């Protein structure tokens, strides 16, 4: 599952930060042991080099990946912003996307937006519409979409992720 490039950089970067702190600790504690000091210094140097490469990659790739795989939460939110026009719906839809940073292909996202807008159109009379998008990893990965207007309208769909990933 993709957590987005920014999230991936954050996780690897944090691990590198800890690794470099530990290398610095070993360097200081291994006084007089030249071989240990050299190894600790190498670990710190390699950690710094990986961090630099990662930063360069982070700057080069995000535009491409963000365009190809938009974030689900803001896009769904935007698609449902016309909720005021639906008669009988008095509160904005409540969205739950897990993980919140989920990105999908435009095709998959368009399907989710269409499903959600249809649910909104059908939800007149309910206090509000709750839309959930979750990933189910049982058997093969699926995207689980559901909508509930709190007044009897309950819709759901399971969309195979396949090569799409999440």
């Amino acid at each position: 599952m993709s957590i987005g490039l920014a999230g991936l950089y954050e996780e690897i970067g944090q691990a590198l930060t800890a690794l470099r702190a530990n290398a610095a600790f070993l360097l200081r504690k291994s006084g007089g042991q030249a071989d240990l000091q050299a190894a600790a210094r190498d670990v710190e140097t390699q950690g710094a080099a990986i961090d630099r490469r990662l930063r360069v990659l982070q700057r080069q790739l995000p535009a491409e990946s963000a365009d190809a795989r938009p974030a689900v939460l803001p896009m769904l939110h935007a698609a449902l912003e016309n909720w005021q026009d639906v008669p009988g719906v008095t509160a904005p839809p409540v969205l739950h996307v897990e993980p919140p940073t989920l990105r999908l292909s435009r095709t998959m996202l368009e399907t989710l937006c269409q499903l959600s807008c249809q649910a909104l159109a059908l939800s007149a009379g309910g206090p509000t519409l709750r839309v959930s998008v979750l990933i189910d990893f049982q058997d093969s990965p699926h995207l689980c979409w559901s909508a509930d207007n709190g007044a009897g309208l309950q819709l759901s769909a399971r969309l195979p992720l396949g090569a799409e990933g999440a």
Partner: protein
Amino acid sequence: MGAKLRVVLADDHAVVRTGYRRLLELEDDMEVVADFGDSDSACAWFAANSADVLVLDLSMPGRGGLETLARVKARETSPKVLVFSMHDNPAIVDQALKAGADGYLTKSSEPDLLIDAVRRVARGERPLSEDVAAARAGADGAAVHAGLSPREFEIFRLLAAGRTVEQIAARLFLSAKTVANYQTMIRQKTGLSSVLEMYRHADAHGLLDGSE
């Protein structure tokens, strides 16, 4: 030798806290008196205790690092705060300095630089790591988010990530009405009127990091 510098670490990554606690405690002139993995625990500790320097990560669960920073600095006996973050985005650095940070280092910095920076903020200096200084020098100060206050900026990032007013209110321990007022102010200041416009702007300027 004078009294040791009392240092607190706040970072949601336990391996980072452990690594830097170990390293800082090798120094004769400092001691790590507490460390925390979330904003609320850190704020609660500072309500009853004091320290010389808080080393603070900005990507913290709960209220988030900027809000934690502002709350800690609002205390009468506030510590010096050294931000230690993955972010080198100039907008986020500027917001941290606006919220009261006394220094800012990215986690790409050499470990020895952090030790030095702890001493420097304690002396009243304002250390910035080289990458941060370079990013700020090349920053677009005219970007529409530059005029937001730290809290407006944090709420702007949450709105751009698709969070509802109610979700933001619960997360920042504010009333929904207050958040709605901030939302209006943010729209006026930035000219970005919809979530989609906010998202596009935030994404284009690298203001979202997945912690929203």
